[in-house]
C-alpha cells in the first residue's frame, strides 16, 4: 500500500513539475541575444533603451532582446572566439570585411540558411529589401547556394570620388564649381598644375612640408583605373581587379578578372604616381603602410590637403565640410555601382547555435520594417537621446547621444530612420534614390571562393605586401621594380589564381 501511495505521489510531483515548466515556457518571452559591431554604448544607456524596447517586442513577437555592443576594436577577436566556442548568441553582425567573414562562415556552417524560413517569418523583410541586394547576399554555404544572412539596406553602392578641398582651390584662383562639374583627370597637366600651385602657395606662407595629394593609395588605383575589388579576394590582399565602364557600370565591356598589376593601365598609373611623388606632391607618410591611414585622416580632418580620395557615401560631403571647417567637394570619378562587396557591407546572420532561429528571424523582420524598432535600437529613446521636431526630423540630445551611439549602418534598413535636422526632411528619400540608381556590375554579385587556391593566395599575399603599396603610392619606380614584382607574383602562382577566379566566374555566369 505504502509503495503504491509513494509511487502515486511521485507521479503527481513529476506531473506538477512538467505542468509548471510548460506554463512557464508559454508565458516567458524568448530571450534573443544579438551581437553588433562598432558600437559606443554605455551599459546604463543600453539598459534604459532595451527595457522600453523589450516591452514592445514582447507584445509583437513574444521575445526580448539582449544586446552585446561590440566595439570596433574588440569585435573581431571576441566574435571569432565566441563563434568557435559555441557561445549562446542568436544573431551576429557579419560582412565581407570583418573577421567573421560572411562567405567563409557560411561555408563552415556557422550561419542558418534563411531561404526556407524567409517567406514564413520574414515576408515583409523579403519585400522591403530589393532583389539586387538579396542577390548579393547569395553565397555558396554549407547547405548549398542561398541566403545566410540579412543584408542591411544602407549605402549599398560604391562610388569612387575625388575629395577636393574647395576652400583651398578657391584660394588658388580656380572656379571651384566649374572644376568640380568638369571632373578631374589624373593624367592631365592641369591636375599637376593645381597641385603645384597649392604647394607654392603654402610655401609662400611658410609651410614647406605641405603635400597637396593626400590619398589612400589602394583606393587611388581603383579610382584612376576604374576597377572594382573582387569580393572574396581579401586573402591575397586584393590582387584581383575587374575593369568596368566609367559612365555605365552595367555595360558589358568584355571584362575578365585580371591580375591588377599586369595591365598597361596599371603601369601608366604607377608611372604617373611615381612622377607626382617625385615632385613632392605625396607625403612620405602616405607612402608608409604603418602611418598612411593615420596621417591621411589627420590631414583630411585639419583640411591640410588639396585633393584626396574617398569611397563615397551619400551626403558625406556635408558631414565632412562641417567637421573639417572647409568646403569639401566630392567629384565623382565614375558612376556608382553595385556588387557583392557593397551588398555585403553589413549583414545580420542567425547563428546555427541559436535555439530560436524562427524568433530571431521574426525579430530581424521587425528591425528592418518597423520604424519604431529600428529607431529605438539605432537612435535611442525620444526624450532621452533625441527630440522630435515638427517637420519629422530629429535633434540629438548630445549629452545622452554620446552614451548611446551604435554604428548606424551596422544594423539593417537605415532608410526607415527619421532624418536628423542637419540631414533635412528629404534626406532618406534622396538617399534611396541615389542608391537605387546604382547599376550592378556585369558580373553581378559574383563571389570568388579562394579556398581551392589558398596556398597560392597566401604566397601572393606575401609578394603583394612587399611591393603593392610602394607602387600604388608612388614610393617606388615602376620602371625599376614592376617587372620583378610581376615575376615574383608569377612564381607565387598568380596565373593559377586568376584562372581559378575566371573559371568560377564563367560557371557563375552559366
Amino acid at each position, binding site marked *: 500500500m505504502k509503495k503504491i501511495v509513494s509511487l502515486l505521489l511521485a507521479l503527481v510531483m513529476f506531473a506538477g513539475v512538467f505542468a509548471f515548466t510548460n506554463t512557464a515556457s508559454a508565458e516567458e518571452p524568448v530571450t534573443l541575444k544579438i551581437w553588433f559591431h562598432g558600437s559606443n554604448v554605455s551599459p546604463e544607456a543600453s539598459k534604459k533603451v532595451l527595457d522600453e524596447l523589450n516591452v514592445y517586442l514582447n507584445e509583437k513577437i513574444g521575445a526580448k532582446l*539582449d544586446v552585446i555592443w561590440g566595439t*570596433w576594436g574588440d569585435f573581431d577577436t571576441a566574435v571569432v*572566439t*565566441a563563434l*568557435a566556442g559555441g557561445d549562446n548568441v542568436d544573431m551576429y553582425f557579419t560582412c565581407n*570585411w570583418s573577421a567573421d567573414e560572411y562567405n567563409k562562415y557560411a561555408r563552415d556552417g556557422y550561419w542558418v540558411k534563411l531561404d526556407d524560413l524567409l517567406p514564413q517569418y520574414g515576408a515583409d523583410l523579403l519585400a522591403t529589401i530589393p532583389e539586387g541586394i538579396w542577390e548579393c547576399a547569395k553565397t555558396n554555404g554549407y547547405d548549398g547556394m542561398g541566403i545566410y544572412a540579412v543584408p542591411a539596406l544602407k*549605402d549599398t553602392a560604391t562610388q569612387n570620388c575625388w575629395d577636393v578641398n574647395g576652400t583651398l582651390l578657391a584660394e588658388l584662383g580656380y572656379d571651384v564649381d566649374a572644376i568640380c562639374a568638369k571632373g578631374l583627370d589624373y593624367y592631365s597637366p592641369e591636375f599637376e598644375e593645381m597641385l603645384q600651385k597649392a604647394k607654392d602657395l603654402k610655401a609662400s606662407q611658410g609651410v614647406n612640408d605641405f603635400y597637396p595629394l593626400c590619398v*589612400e593609395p589602394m583606393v587611388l588605383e581603383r579610382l584612376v583605373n576604374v576597377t572594382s575589388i573582387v569580393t572574396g579576394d581579401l586573402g591575397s590582399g586584393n590582387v584581383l581587379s575587374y575593369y568596368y565602364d566609367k559612365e555605365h557600370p552595367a555595360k558589358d565591356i568584355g571584362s575578365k578578372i585580371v591580375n591588377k598589376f599586369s595591365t598597361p593601365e596599371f603601369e601608366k598609373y604607377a608611372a604617373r604616381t611615381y612622377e607626382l611623388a617625385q615632385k613632392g606632391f605625396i607625403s612620405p607618410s602616405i607612402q608608409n603602410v604603418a602611418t598612411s*591611414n593615420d596621417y591621411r585622416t589627420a590631414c583630411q580632418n585639419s583640411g591640410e590637403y588639396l585633393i584626396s580620395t574617398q*569611397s563615397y557615401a551619400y551626403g558625406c560631403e556635408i558631414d565632412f565640410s562641417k567637421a573639417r571647417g572647409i568646403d569639401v567637394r566630392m567629384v565623382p570619378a565614375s558612376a556608382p555601382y553595385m556588387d557583392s562587396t557593397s551588398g555585403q557591407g553589413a549583414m545580420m546572420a542567425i547563428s546555427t547555435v541559436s535555439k530560436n532561429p524562427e524568433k530571431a528571424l521574426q525579430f530581424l523582420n521587425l528591425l528592418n520594417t518597423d520604424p519604431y524598432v529600428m529607431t529605438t535600437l539605432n537612435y535611442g529613446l525620444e526624450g532621452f537621446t533625441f527630440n522630435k521636431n515638427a517637420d519629422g526630423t530629429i535633434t540629438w540630445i548630445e549629452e545622452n547621444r554620446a552614451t548611446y551611439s551604435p554604428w548606424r549602418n551596422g544594423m539593417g534598413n537605415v532608410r526607415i530612420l527619421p532624418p536628423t535636422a542637419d540631414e533635412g526632411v528629404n534626406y532618406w528619400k534622396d538617399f534611396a534614390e541615389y542608391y537605387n540608381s546604382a547599376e550592378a556590375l556585369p558580373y553581378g554579385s559574383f563571389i570568388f571562393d579562394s579556398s581551392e587556391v589558398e596556398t597560392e593566395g597566401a604566397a601572393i599575399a606575401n609578394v603583394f605586401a612587399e611591393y603593392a603599396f610602394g607602387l600604388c603610392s608612388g614610393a617606388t619606380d615602376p620602371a625599376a621594380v614592376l617587372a620583378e614584382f610581376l615575376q615574383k607574383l608569377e612564381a607565387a602562382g598568380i596565373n593559377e589564381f586568376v584562372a581559378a577566379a575566371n573559371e568560377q566566374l564563367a560557371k557563375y555566369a552559366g
Partner: protein
Amino acid sequence: MRKNHRLNQISVGTETIFHVIVGLFSICCIIPFIFVIVISFTAESSIREIGYSFIPRAWSTGTYTYAIQRLPQIWRSYFNSILITVIGTALSTLMCALYSYALFRPDFKYRGFFTFFSFFTMIFGGGLVPTYVICTQVLGLRENYAALIVPLLVSPFNIIIMRTFFKSSVPLELIEAATIDGSGEYSTFFMVVLPIAKPGLATIALLNALAYWNDWYLSLLYIKQNKVLQPLQALLMELQNNVEYLNRMSAALGSSAIQEAMRAPTQTLRMVLVVLIVIPIACAYPFFQRYIVSGLTIGSVKG
C-alpha cells in the same frame, strides 16, 4: 697605500664606461615615457600642426580635465584595476607559494606527478577556444570580476621560480627542527618557511601584480556586456584598437570609417590614459624593489 680599499673595487676608467653604458640605457628607457607625458600635456592644435614633439607650440591641461570630468568610467576602471590587482596578486601569490612548497618538500609522495602536471602546461596549452569554453560554460567566468582574476591565478613559471627559491634558501633541517619542536604543517609553512622566503614571495608578487595590472585580454574575452567592470588597461586598449581598426578598415568602410573616427578620442587623450595607467604601477616598483634586490643577492652571499 690606498685607503678604503673596497673588496670589489674596479678602476675609475672602467667604472666610468660602465656608468655611461648604464646611464645611456636608462635614458633609452625613460625617454619614451617622458615623451608620453609631454604629449599628454600638448595642445591638440600643436599636434595637428607639427606632430608629436618634445617642445610643442602650445601646452594644455585640457585633456586631463576632460578625462577626469567627462569620462566617469575612468574612475570606475581605476577602481576595477586596483581591486583586481590586489585580490589577484594576494590569491595567486598564495596559491603559488602553497603549490611550490609542496613540490619542494622531498617527502611529498606525488611530487614528480604534480611537477609535471604544472610544467606540462608550459609546453602544451589547451588553446584559446577550449580555454574560453571551459571558462565561460563550465566555470561561469563571464561578466564578473572572477573572470578577470581566476584565469591568471596559477602560473607554472612562477611555481618553478618559487620552488627553486625554496630549495636554495630554506634548509630542510629547519623544517625538521620545527616539526620536532611540535609545529604543525601549517604553522611550519606560515611561521617558519614564508618569512625566510619573503624576497622570493615579493618577486612572485610583483610579477603577478604586473600581470594583473597590465591584462586587458581577459576583459576583451569575458566582459562584453557588463562593461563597467573593465579595468583601465582594457579601456585604453579599446580606445586604441577602435582608432586602429577604423584606420585599417577605412577602405572597406568608406566614409563610414571617417565619420566613426571623428567620435574617437584624440591622440592626447590616449596619452593621458597611458600616464594614468603607468603612475600607480610605477609607484609600486620601489616598494617591491628592496626585496627583489635582496632576492638576487641572497644566494651569492651564502656561496
